[in-house]
């Protein structure tokens, strides 16, 4: 099956700073992919390259099988995009925005948009500058959803939305679109949302994707253990085992984050320790911290 979204070795730098270092990523139709990363890790750059607003310096991005750099206006009709900050024309009323969308997007369904806006309690006659940040975000999301896109790209869509809105609107919209076979790629800093919505997670770090796996698989393969080293000549040993993602020293003990710990590795771990705790499954936030704040050597 053709991927709905694909990055092939995309590189991009700003001055001497390399922001993307050979990004490889693919999202299938109907899949919800969450792109995570710290501030400045290149998420927005990647999304802008994907939509053809920025040119990569190397490699290529594809969306709906078309190179991003050559998207036609017909291709853009099939893609929904909400940029970071969900900016709309502040001087227009919501109904003017609906009219504008209806005139400039052939797939736009005004009835659907009006129904969703009414459900969210957003008055059509209000000017955008009178809306709260959260309300503006809702309008932007509803406008995109009403175009029935085949690919949906969100740059931090939850920004400005409260918990209730995130659950009611964002989750509903994304799930609805995904059910219709729409591929969704979104970046977010709210990892609880990601855990709830995403099928697959990617963590962008140092300009490359260091994690690319389904969420349940991640939870199955990664575990945390407390490890107290055996002392030799008064000095404690260091944890040395394959699959160690991060070792954090807490007093005399270590908190280890381990990947794919099989029996042989566990035996090695136990051999150098006075105590090894039972496995704990880390949540996404812990895993994200382990992978993006730990030293590279520890991996």
């Amino acid at each position, binding site marked *: 099956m053709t991927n709905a979204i694909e990055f092939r070795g995309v*590189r991009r*730098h*700003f*001055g*001497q*700073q*390399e922001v993307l*270092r*050979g*990004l490889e990523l693919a999202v299938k139709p109907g899949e919800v992919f969450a792109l995570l990363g710290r501030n400045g890790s290149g998420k927005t750059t990647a999304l*802008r390259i994907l*939509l053809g*607003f*920025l*040119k990569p*310096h190397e490699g290529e991005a594809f969306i709906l099988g078309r190179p991003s750099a050559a998207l*036609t*206006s*017909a291709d*853009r*009709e099939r*893609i*929904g*995009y909400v*940029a970071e*900050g969900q*900016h*709309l*024309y*502040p*001087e*227009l009323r919501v109904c*003017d925005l609906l*009219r*504008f*969308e209806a*005139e*400039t*997007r*052939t797939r736009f369904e005004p009835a659907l948009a009006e129904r969703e806006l009414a459900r969210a309690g957003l008055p059509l006659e209000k000017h955008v500058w009178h809306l709260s940040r959260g309300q503006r975000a809702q309008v932007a999301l509803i406008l995109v959803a009403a175009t029935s896109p085949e690919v949906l790209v969100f740059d931090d869509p939850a920004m400005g939305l409260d918990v209730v809105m995130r659950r009611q609107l964002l989750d509903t919209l994304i799930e609805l679109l995904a059910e219709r076979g729409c591929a969704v790629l979104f970046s977010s800093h709210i990892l609880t949302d990601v855990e709830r919505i995403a099928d*697959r997670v990617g963590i962008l*770090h*140092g*300009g*490359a*994707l*260091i*994690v*690319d*796996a*389904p969420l349940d*698989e*991640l939870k199955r*393969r*990664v575990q945390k253990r407390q490890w107290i080293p055996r002392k030799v000549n008064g000095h404690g040993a260091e944890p040395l085992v394959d699959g160690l*993602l991060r070792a954090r020293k807490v007093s005399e003990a270590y908190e280890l984050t381990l*990947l794919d710990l099989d029996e042989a590795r566990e035996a090695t771990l136990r051999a150098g320790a006075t105590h090894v705790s039972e496995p704990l499954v880390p949540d996404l936030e812990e895993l994200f911290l382990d*992978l993006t704040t730990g030293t*590279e050597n520890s*991996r």
Partner: protein
Amino acid sequence: MNKTLALIQKDRVWLTIAACTGAVACTVLLFELRFENVFVLPGYGLVEGLWLLLPLLAALLAGFQVAREHLSRTSEYVRQRAITPQHLYWSQTVAAVTVLLSWPVVAVALLWLRELVFGFGAAGADARGWGILAAGTSLGLATHALTLFVLTLPLAWVGRVALGILTAIALLALQSVLVSFEPPWLVFALLHGGLALALWMVARVNSCTPHDPDRPLPRSLLLVAAPLVAVCAALFGAIVTSSWEASSLQRLQMQRPWIVEIAPDQLALVRPVRAGVQEILDEGLAPTGRLASGRSLGNETLAPRPAEPRFDPFDVRSVYHWQRNQTLWIRGGVRNVELTPWGSVRIIDRLESGRSAWALERPGSGRFSKRAFLREARRFSIDQELLFLIDPESPGIWRIDAETPPVLVPLPLPGGERPVKVCSANLGVNPTHTAGNDWVDVVVGEQHAWQLTIDGWQPVESSRVLQPFTLTLHDADPFQPDVEVLSSGGQRLRHRYTLATGKEMFLAGLTCVGAVLRPLPLALFAATQDYDDIGRSLPHETRWLFDPLLGGGFAWLLAPSALLCLLLATLARRELRQRGASHARANSWAAVILVGGVFGALVVSLIETRRAWRAPARSAPLPVVIRAA
């Protein structure tokens, strides 16, 4: 409603604000200029007013057009739909141009409505007024297009500003040449309209080419940018070096000893000590310690001045007399008299009882020359003033007084004398005591001096007329002129200036630097033109095309100029090749530098930045730590 209308309608708030603001500004301007100055007998004020206001407003409008989506941060929101960037650009441009065109239309309509009720009404409709309006509007359109072109250039902001200034000055230079040929307003409007269209087309390409500071200018744009930069840099360079040389030469001349008439029969070389007091120098230019005061030959006349033949300042053909607008007090109001650029006399009476306008042609030949000027005769009473008009080309003098309707009364000098000079004369006693000044303008004929009175020409004793120096340049060398001055007392002083002091040599050197920096093609052209002769045949506005040194015996400066251009072009080519540019690109920019000289090199360095060619060291991507099984 189609997509274009939808795109325009979303901006209706801002477009309405722009339309109203511009229309109000234009209406106020045209009301200030007055109806009769626009449509009855168009005046110069209309040209100047429109040419200042419309380009300014047009530039602001273009700036807003470019910034509009950035200000609301909706650039990507508006792009992510079934609209091409070209469609978006043309929709915005058409909307902006419509707004721009609406300004003069609304202003003119309001002016006409008012005049239909209160004033000249439909009676006044001079076609030139429409021509000037069209030309002013076309200038506004060209400015809009130029600003749009500059602001959308895929360069860093410093590059856009620099290239914008360069292009604007180059266009002004071309415009000055165009104006000097006095084209009809329609031609002017068509040329500017065509220029605007071309610039909008280029701006369309620019706006669809996003700026990437980490990549060189795309090849497609290079094909447009390189020739444009070359031409603009050459024109800009010629203007800058021309001003540089003129300024250095003038400062050099002002450094030099003055020639002063210290007594009616004595001329001397002096250096100024303080205001009005000079120290006399001996033949070797050494100070003698003797102080004197007297009338000085303006040192600026020593500098080559091609724009104007070396008439002495009192000669009727001299630029010093170019007074072409005068207001007379007449009973019940004022009479404005203006010599128009199209060779007629425009008279507008603004009286308490109403306004009237007339255009008077030169009796017989139809047009007054561009050197014709107006002079005010001595005032005889508070509401009785006299003007006289002198045309030095095919000489003639006419009187204009308070009669209604006004007439041009021929006023030849007695005895059929030809007017030669206009001087001041000290009559000693003011006969009417209406003014405290005893100096009056007199016309000097071939034999006598004459003063215009209410009874006609009256002779003036030649001893009361301030006689000018007569300057002869035996050698018009820009740095070492050989001059001979004849005083009013008949004494002659001949002197060859040399570069005597370090400061004079420094200023001469500065002038030479200006000539060397002149872009090569224009330097070659200037070297073929005798600078001393061009002022007699070419208008003032084209003076920047010529060079006082290259066209005044210093053609050898072409050699260092060519060497400098070659050196810069070679260095730029080598640098670009080292950075990784293709042969074609490096050769294109080298050619631009050969044409534009130092100025071309500066622009090339702004376009082909180091950053654009310098990629960071490639680092291997971090390994994937967790990949789906």
